[in-house]
């Protein structure tokens, strides 16, 4: 599935193809058997593609396109490697939940920091707040449930984990994730030409600041 040849969606790959659903008057939700196909999905004529964890939302102008035509023209192209950017985010690991998560996982804080900063994460999708990217790749040892009671205020730049995901809070907001550290990087600025630092598909590494 590396060529950009037009393969009709629904019959791509060896296994069962993606599943399509109408989702309101101007959108289609496409669910993939292999979540990695999200990065190769193309849909000519669509106004906007929005990625989820296993899905892509196709938004279109119902005055100009019929959903059946969009489905017929959709295909898997080359993975968007050309657009993938790698971000190195400096982190001071002094979050309020650092020691609690470490002891719950049977680690010293030093071991937790080493494991958290050792891997390259991928931004799977955004949500919750502008610029809030869900990063996959977290060491399974660090998978930890979110707080029973969310905090009413998490500061901008907080680096946090919940379940299998890692994230950086782009703005001050409420939040229920476990806070491991903080960065001074700006994750979201609505006035910048590229408002979000991290887009879906991007790679992220954390660099320990001591």
């Amino acid at each position, binding site marked *: 599935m590396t060529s950009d040849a037009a393969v009709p969606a629904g019959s791509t790959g060896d296994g069962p193809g993606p599943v399509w659903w109408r989702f309101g008057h101007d959108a289609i939700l496409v669910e993939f058997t292999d979540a990695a196909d999200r990065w190769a999905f193309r849909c000519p004529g669509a106004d906007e593609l929005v990625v989820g964890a296993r899905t892509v939302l196709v938004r279109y102008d119902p005055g100009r396109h019929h959903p059946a035509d969009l489905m017929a023209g959709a295909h898997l192209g080359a993975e968007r490697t050309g657009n993938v950017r790698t971000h190195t985010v400096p982190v001071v690991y002094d979050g309020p939940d650092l020691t609690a998560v470490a002891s719950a996982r049977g680690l010293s804080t030093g071991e937790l920091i080493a494991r958290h900063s050792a891997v390259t994460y991928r931004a799977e999708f*955004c949500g919750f707040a502008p610029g809030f990217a869900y990063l996959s790749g977290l060491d399974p040892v660090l998978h930890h449930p979110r707080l029973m009671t969310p905090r009413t205020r998490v500061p901008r730049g907080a680096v946090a984990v919940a379940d299998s995901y890692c994230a950086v809070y782009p703005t001050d907001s409420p939040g229920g994730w476990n806070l491991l550290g903080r960065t001074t990087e700006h994750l979201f600025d609505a006035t910048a030409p590229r408002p979000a630092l991290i887009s879906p598909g991007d790679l992220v590494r954390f660099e320990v600041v001591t």
Partner: protein
Amino acid sequence: MIVVESPGLFASVQDTGRVGWSEVGVGRSGAFDTGAAGLADRLVGNAESAAVIEAVGGGLRLRAADRTVVAVTGAHGPLTVAGRPAPRNAPVTLSTDDTLELGPPTVGLRSYIAVRGGIAVPAVLGSRSWDSLGRVGPDPLEIGDWLPVGAPRGNGPLVEVAPVGPPGPAVLDVAAAPRRGWFTDAAWQTLLDTAWLVLPTSDRVGIRLAGPVLDRHDDRRGAELAPEPMVRGAIQVPPDGRPIILGPDHPTTGGYPVIAVVDVAGVARCAHLVPGETVRLRAILDAGR
């Protein structure tokens, strides 16, 4: 220029929304009752994409710093200009220093005020809409704000009044949505048979409903949905069973299964649901899945 003498209960600037940023978590936002906002613009000769003021409830008081033409649509209720009753759904001329005041709505909740030329506050990411969830766009109106007005286009209003009534009965047309299959047929029937109570926590993010629990199939009980993109009008069903109809400021992705989607007219009607009233849902097609 328009001067905000009082924002009333709550008022913000809205247009047709912020397109193209959902992928990085910035939703579309925009006027909740799109039909009413577009009508207000047309009545004063604006393009339908021109920014208007969306006012919740009553109490909004504006002063015209210059002579201008405005139109108020959406909810029904008292409207005065320079202290005298004025019509809704009609172009109304304000002389310099005239004030316009919205009384409490008698039917509906949100009113739209278009000014000839459009509200011309700076756009953020291509839109003048205030997004209450993402906190993007021009801040909600406050006492003493000065709102710039754009240059008028064309020849101005051509009609004297638009023959529209107040918002109709709270009955929303819905179609089955991607995760309809997570729920039992009995749950689908319950969705359509229930007079759902509108909760006071409802806002531009979503209309929150109370009623009977909508049961999932046994094999979906306790299951987590991998977060997926959301749309305006989607009815999410959290485990507590209380459905949420997503409004214009909905999160771009969500982890609760969506059983149904409210159609465009129904979402506009949601802009006028008042906490404590009941709303009914009606299937567009005689199809459950």
